[in-house]
């Protein structure tokens, strides 16, 4: 393909630009490098182009299906049971202070 058309195709299929990638990364609480931003812009655009084949289907009268089987939640009896305990849970914590998870200061 001549370079110009290749460039056109790239531009036209770019659903996600660097700015949008950065916005989504912020929502996802992910720090990305500039290289990752560029790479994800291309890859996510290509994936979304593919995903849009769903548009070929008319779904006007179709209900969204969030759960594939006609069953509802099976709730257990509401009775208290022993929990794992603070000590056990804190064993995996990156930083602790007594019975607490420790994090950097949140309010100035």
């Amino acid at each position, binding site marked *: 393909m001549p370079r110009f058309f290749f460039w056109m195709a790239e531009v036209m299929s770019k659903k996600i630009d660097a700015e949008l990638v950065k916005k989504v990364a912020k929502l996802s609480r992910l720090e990305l490098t500039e290289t990752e931003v560029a790479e994800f812009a291309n890859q996510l655009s290509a*994936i979304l182009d593919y995903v849009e084949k769903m548009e070929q289907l008319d779904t006007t009268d179709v209900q969204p299906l969030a759960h594939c089987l006609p069953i509802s939640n099976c709730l257990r009896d509401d009775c208290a049971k022993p929990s794992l305990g603070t000590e056990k849970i804190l064993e995996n914590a990156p930083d602790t202070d007594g019975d607490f998870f420790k994090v950097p200061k949140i309010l100035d």
Partner: protein
Amino acid sequence: MDCNCKKLRDDIAAGRIKSAEAVEAVFDTIEKNDSKIGSYISTFKEQAIANSKQLDEKISTGKSAGILAGTPIAIKDNMCTTFGATSCASKMLENFHAPYNATVVEKLISAGAIIIGKTNMDEFAMGSSTENSALLKTVNPWNTQCVPGGSSGGSAAAVAAGMCSAALGSDTGGSIRQPASFCGVVGLKPTYGRVSRFGLVAFGSSLDQIGPITQNVTDAALMMNVIAGHDPADSTSVDEKTAPVCDCLEKIDEPIGNLKIAVVPQFNTGADGDVQKAINEAIEVYKKMGAEIVEIDMPHLEYSVAVYYIVATAEASGNLARYDGVHYGHRAEDIENYIDVYCKSRAAGFGKEVKRRIMLGTYALSSGYYDAYYLKALKVRNLIRGDFLRAFEKCDCVLIPTCPTTAFKFGEKMDDPLKMYLSDVYTIAANLAGVPAISIPCGFDGNDLPIGLQLMAPAFGEDKLLRIARMFESKTDWHKRRPPII
């Protein structure tokens, strides 16, 4: 030593071999071969041998030792165990020690299984080749230049190479069946809700399901008898009243009379030549046993990959929000404020594919795009489910290839995520519709790589599905072939 589950269990129960001997023999094989294959992230040799000796004592006093009595079993490293780490093959959880056992692990131990190790996988089960593991490389025992498939690649390679009697995998879009197909073993994804997900590290919660990877169909039935059933700790596991657990083993050798199998012509013709040929031969095997073959159209299945990569990533973006660098998992060092704790810890803890999927899912759920992507995907998911409901009015099961190709080479699809996603095109639909599906060996391609045959049945029809699979297995010997590496 023949280490398939049922035979070994029978031998141990009858006193022909001791569990400790079997477990030691399996560790010999692991020590000899796993440096080449890379199935296990962690192994528990001392604990396993000690447990097997205890079990041997129990058996020698005439006590019942459970239906898996002394057999060495491997667990995918995304199921919680109180022993060893539960890493999900991620730097995020590399040093995570779960405070409880997954329900499936408890059930295996109660049945007398000896847990020998935790197997490699794509990070957080995201991938189709196990190349996304941040901790280890697993190769295909049939050809070390090729991937074992994924995401349960470590489990499938371990079973194929005789490094355990059976293994557990998890399947969100094909992660049990595709590696089973690539490694020439049996892999079953049960009906959504049949097996408890309590203690399975969540990826796509409406799709995830734990299931067995085994050397043969009978072993898969045996494993199902152990792990299936309602669990009060998982509110999506189905209750006894809705779908009682049935004995999968009892009638496993009884063929199904008046069997009707549906084939979907466009799916077969989309596969590689060798795969097509093997599938056509498999259809002939069923015909010879008197099965009626009907051709059906499942027009919405071609949209499976599109739907899946919206639904699964949307669910993943929520599920993986819990890795915040605060409660457990990796925390970055260079932290200036609390936002850094999240952003930098997640940047360092997650690999590229995990980040890509979190990004895609967050985008699909974000304001302004929700209707176009997520809601649309849920509607098309309903159409796919409808295809299955209509199909099962005409047949007992649907037969298609497990994968369009056999195992591919390392690196072949790593630069193009979409190409990797499309390798799951035949397996994803069963997850979206929630129905059980099994992959069984049905031949080899020109390069001596295994080919998998996939059978899909109505929800909660595992017993019948396994019998249909067993019918094919009883007339063929593909499942008896072992890779050259052992």
